[in-house]
């Protein structure tokens, strides 16, 4: 067996130039997949974390009623005893903080022009404690305790549309929990640029007490839970779930992935693109390898004939070619992983940026993540590809007529 493997190994390096070309092709495929996959992973991780830190949080707690029916009045499916729920969750391991939120809608006006907004009322300190800070293009975040003034953050699109800037005032109009129309004056303390144009065109954020005063309710829409790491989400959900049993309102937990529709769409798209690329690389390696291995077989026709004449079982010839191809696959995968990682290091160090993706306004840095699972997956793919590519040449070699093979020139 050892000698058989030795023969296969030496045969791989018999025609060095051809082997080097094959290794470059296989390695290039692997390196390409690692680059693309690593960049996609970086983008998806960035999108995931920005989605979470832009306010989605890792876990959100709602009343079960919230998912069962639409609100008749503002906040009538909201959480009433939210302080008790928050305290219960806060004590769980890996929980960095719990922030109450009110999601509401209304109109805002500068006295001349009115516009629709999607409002979010937050506890600024609780948000900051969890590391959820809005991306400000100017001004500052909401103060924890404002002196009577109702502070507001607005999206860059809103500011442009309403022709307002930091320090200007706006009037917010919304329907209260009783169905009446209520309004408050706010002072703009910051302009937010989330990177998503649709959001920035409607964005408004005020403090929780201000919103409760506006909406005439003590309830909150949900509680947003921030964790020390996204990877702990499932673990915390498992632990927190039982803590929420037996409350006056039945609660439901939602993980960030359940709420991040945009993230899921993008991930599906990128997965599809990556799968397509993987299939292309697979077939490129397969076709090129078949050609290379057939050439190798033709060159060694007389040698195969000699081996068969000496009583070598035909299955050995099949195995020899398959082992050789697999060795090339293993070496090619190693070359590809090394090259992919080296390129990744160089690209990461280069500080390259790419233009903003569609729907966003902020350009992206070009980085490649190191993904062991992708390295293993790509390596396995090319090794399998090479092994498959060797079947045809191996079968042809094993079926050679000995007399004809020995006479081959």
């Amino acid at each position, binding site marked *: 067996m050892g*000698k*058989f493997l*030795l*023969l296969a190994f*030496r*045969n791989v390096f*018999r025609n060095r130039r051809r082997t080097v070309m094959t290794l470059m092709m296989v390695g290039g495929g692997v390196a390409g997949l690692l680059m693309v996959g690593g960049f996609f992973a970086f983008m998806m991780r960035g999108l995931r974390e920005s989605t979470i830190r832009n306010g989605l949080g890792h876990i959100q707690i709602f009343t079960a009623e919230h998912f069962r029916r639409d609100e008749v009045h503002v906040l009538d499916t909201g959480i009433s005893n939210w302080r008790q729920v928050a305290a219960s969750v806060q004590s769980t391991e890996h929980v960095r903080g719990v922030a109450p939120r009110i999601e509401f809608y209304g109109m805002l006006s500068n006295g001349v022009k009115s516009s629709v907004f999607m409002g979010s009322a937050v506890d600024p300190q609780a948000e900051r404690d969890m590391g959820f800070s809005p991306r400000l293009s100017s001004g500052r975040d909401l103060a924890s305790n404002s002196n009577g003034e109702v502070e507001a953050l607005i999206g860059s699109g809103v500011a442009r549309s309403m022709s307002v800037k930091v320090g200007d005032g706006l009037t917010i109009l919304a329907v209260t929990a009783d169905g009446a129309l209520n309004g408050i004056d706010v002072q703009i303390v910051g302009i937010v640029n989330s990177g998503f144009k649709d959001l920035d065109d409607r964005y408004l954020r005020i403090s929780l007490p201000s919103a409760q005063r506006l909406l005439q309710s003590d309830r909150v829409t949900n509680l947003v839970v921030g964790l020390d790491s996204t990877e702990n989400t499932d673990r915390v959900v498992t632990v927190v779930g039982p803590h929420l049993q037996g409350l006056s309102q039945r609660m439901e937990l939602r993980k960030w992935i359940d709420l991040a529709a945009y993230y899921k769409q993008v991930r599906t798209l990128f997965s599809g693109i990556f799968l397509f690329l993987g299939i292309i690389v697979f077939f490129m390696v397969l076709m090129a390898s078949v050609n290379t291995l057939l050439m190798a077989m033709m060159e060694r026709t*007389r*040698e195969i*004939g*000699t*081996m*068969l*004449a*000496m*009583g*070598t*079982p*035909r299955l*050995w010839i099949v195995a020899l070619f398959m082992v050789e191809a697999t060795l090339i696959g293993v070496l090619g995968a190693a070359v590809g992983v090394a090259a992919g990682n080296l390129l990744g290091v160089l690209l990461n160090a280069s500080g390259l940026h790419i233009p903003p993706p569609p729907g966003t306004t902020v350009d992206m840095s070009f980085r490649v993540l190191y993904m062991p699972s992708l390295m293993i997956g790509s390596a396995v793919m090319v090794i399998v590809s090479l092994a498959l590519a060797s079947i045809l040449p191996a079968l042809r070699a094993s079926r050679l007529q*000995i*007399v004809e093979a*020995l006479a081959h020139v």
Partner: protein
Amino acid sequence: MNPINSLVQIEDVTRKFPLDHNAVTALDRVSLCVRPGEFLAIAGPSGSGKSTLLNLIGCIDKPTFGRVLIDGIDTASLGPARTTQLRREKIGFVFQTFNLIPVFTARENVEYPLLVQGLGSAERRKRVDAALESVGLSARANHRPDLLSGGERQRVAVARAIVHRPALVLADEPTANLDTNNATQLIDLMRDLNRSLGLTFIFSTHDQRLLEHTPRIVRLTDGQVVSDSCSQEISHGQVFASCVS
């Protein structure tokens, strides 16, 4: 010759090859008996059927008509696996162009038939050493074929052919690619092995230098045996040999 005592028995063998819409007859009703321990040359001009006859004896080809028996076994009755086993165990091959595995050293090339037979490493080492010593190449054992001269390569090929102690060694034009000196040395080597080990050698050649050292010569012309130096009668391409070794 009593067929029971023969190592190789060829009975009225014809081999035809298809060519376009016709058939070329490479061997025409050839009969031959070879006893164990014989040193036999098949001589004849190019295209006379020497290699075809060796291929049939070596079980790497099958006759169109007639029978080939090796050690009493009718090769036509064997399936592919048994035929492979027969070659592996009973026959050694020496080729005109040496046909060594270029990525193996001389030692590894000689070892190869034993690997195929599945022998253990200690036994392999012992036999390979003996085979290399018998061809005088112990000192060159770790050289690859491209670092050996033509004569040395052919001696490695001979060592490879005898290492598994076959009953029969077939050599197809073994001296064709050698100069006179190396050719003579090779023939002497083969003759020595034939005498010392009792190995049966059948080789094809049209090299007169070789034939001078050969006790039995079978001459072929146009696929027919025209003379056998040990035969008493030749009639219609058949050799009724009563050759006494």
